[in-house]
């Protein structure tokens, strides 16, 4: 449990490099094992923010949407396509990323240069992020759409194909934070997203205050563009809480 998943951090860190063909993950049934394939930040955050068995959200709607939007922008940052400077997001390399969803988001960023505020993009990407990330995960066989609810309140939840894969990011972060182990760059970003969407209580449920402080200290170590993004995410989520409208 105390090891980080192979690959993602290093692959993300060496930006621009392709991670090799994505192998659709087959449900792994062995108890206690975890998926051994490249995860993307938005996918991992999606897992973290949903129940690993039922697929129901653990987080209120606007925080989830903005968190996923921030995760997608962070993915582009890791791919070396965009960077964050203060309150602005700037496209540094318009070459299309391999992933269709990253491509889609980058395309909009390139096509709409008049909007540069990170918050504007968090709000814009957030309007569709949930559906899009779920679709991407469904295409990889990570989740299965399922209709739930009565006739008049039907909605789709995306049930994880394998609960061990789904719970892995939660288990990893929770274990490392409780044991004060340094997080790698990928996990710092994931923990930062959780912290700024107010999802951190699920990671640190019942943990001592020192673990909370450790989380904060780890997230503060993130490199500057990411910290800028997280600051805007936190402000947007806080703004949603303060907003009068509650729907």
């Amino acid at each position, binding site marked *: 449990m105390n090891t980080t998943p192979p690959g993602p951090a290093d692959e993300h860190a060496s930006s621009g490099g392709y991670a090799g063909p994505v192998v659709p993950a087959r449900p792994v049934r062995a108890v206690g094992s975890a998926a051994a394939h490249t995860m993307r930040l938005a996918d991992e955050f999606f897992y973290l923010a949903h129940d690993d068995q039922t697929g129901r*959200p*653990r*987080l*209120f*709607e*606007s*925080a989830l949407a903005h968190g996923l939007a921030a995760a997608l922008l962070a993915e582009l940052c890791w791919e070396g396509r965009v960077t964050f400077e*203060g*309150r602005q997001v700037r496209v540094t390399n318009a070459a299309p990323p391999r992933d269709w969803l990253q491509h889609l988001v980058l395309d*909009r960023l390139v*096509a*709409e*240069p*008049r*909007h540069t*505020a990170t*918050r*504007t*993009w968090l*709000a*814009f990407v957030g*309007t569709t992020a949930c559906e899009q990330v779920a679709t991407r995960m469904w295409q990889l066989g990570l989740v299965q759409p399922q209709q739930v609810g009565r006739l008049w309140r039907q909605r789709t939840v995306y049930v994880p194909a394998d609960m061990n894969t789904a719970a892995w990011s939660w288990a990893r972060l929770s274990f490392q934070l409780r044991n004060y182990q340094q997080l790698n760059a990928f996990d710092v970003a994931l923990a930062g997203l959780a912290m*700024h969407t*107010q*999802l951190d*209580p*699920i990671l640190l449920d019942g943990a001592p205050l020192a673990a909370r402080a450790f989380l904060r200290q780890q997230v503060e170590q993130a490199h500057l563009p990411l*910290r*800028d993004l*997280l*600051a*805007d995410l*936190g*402000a*947007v*989520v*806080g*703004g*949603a*809480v*303060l*907003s*009068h*409208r*509650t*729907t």
Partner: protein
Amino acid sequence: MPRSSPDTVSAVLARGRLGIPSVVFFVIAAAAPLTVVAGGATTGYAVTGVTGIPVSYLVVAAVLALFAVGYVAMSRRIVNAGAFYTYVTRGLGRPAGVGAAMVALLAYNAMQIGLYGGAGAVTAQFLNDRYGWQLTWWMCALAVWAIVAALGVARIDLNGRVLAVVLVAECVVALAFDAIMVTHPADATISFDTLSPSHVFAAGIGAALVTAITGFVGFEGTVVFSEETKDPRRTIARATYIAVTVTGLLYGLSAWAMSVATGPDRIVEAARTDGTDLIFNLVSPYLADSVVTVARILFITSLFAALLSFHHTVARYLFALGRERVLPAVFARTSRHTGAPKIGSLAQSGLALGVLVGYAVAGADPIVHLFFWVTVTGGLGVLILMTVTSAAVIGFFARTTHNEGPWRSLIAPGAATLALGGILTVTLREFDTLLGVEPDSPLRWAFPAAYAAAALLGLAWALLLRSTNPDIYAAIGLGADSDTGPLRAPETVRQPA
């Protein structure tokens, strides 16, 4: 840049934005017109014994419109614009801001908790009269409290459409009642005596003016919506003026109509005898029972809407202050599933419960001692906040470069500061009249002194933070934006989009 390609980002983000009517509905519903007309105005007559209540509503509406000029102009330039203390922070400095925040917490809590007295007493009376139940006011107040507490944590606010329907119904009822009362005057003559400007210089006018201000509390909420409107520059300004004008005229008209129906010389006596029933008793000879019953139910729903609205206001204040770490960080906790400011909401409900139990045990009168005393004390707090905010608007525009003319940046806020300061002075001088107690009663000083204590506490706390925790001190007034505090200077211009 040539705008050849469609701006899809703006188009997508513009979906679901609010227009003027929605904003007006939200804030007027929070101000709860029928609560003010049937509860505030009648109890105002009864407790203060002042007949100039109608003209006070009109005077206060004019002063608040003046106040709104600078207030709305400044709201376009700051983030976290929903809170008075943000204005004070940016205009008069952080220590004054924290002082204002403490005053605001006390004032909005007083508004909310006081309303429970009205809601409890009115609901109990309605149920007892209609169904012959033997309920006490505090049973009903606790039932209402439980519903508000549950909706607060679940972050359920009344739906905009529901609010609009209820609000329109309330206004129709109030106007219909006014028409009936004016067409059936006492002594067969319509007297304009209670609208006479001479009342403004009469004894006890301070009490009448602060009663009127209490009725308007909630209108300042328009600016909260500025980031959610189609056109922040125009929508908010117009919605604010419309809200002040509509409520001002409605309150003034209704309070005057009551005095016509009873005769100006007997209004105080009638209000003391009938209490919050006055308006219903005055019209019931001319209307079917069912209409009066519907009106009474609307009175209760309007109290409920106001209770819920002020509950959310307090919870959000606590959240913003917790976020800035001015209050303990636990207040910044939200409910994961609903995004409600959970701890803030629970704290407010807990405080309200404590006060309700205290009043029930002490056997105090729910209408006079809880509803009127505590809400007008809340009104006094908001009056203090508006006075200070008005001064802060001048300070803000004096310090920043801007393109507003002198009317918005100096003349209107200056005049509003003087007018509000004047009202504040006479209110404090006549606080005994307001409470209906003897001039030498210690109570007349106890309520205002609570605000002085809160302000001093906030001031001292801010100065302590400045020396011990500069990071927190720097983020004061940023609300949700305090996350970005350590990284960058506060944003001075709201983002478009």
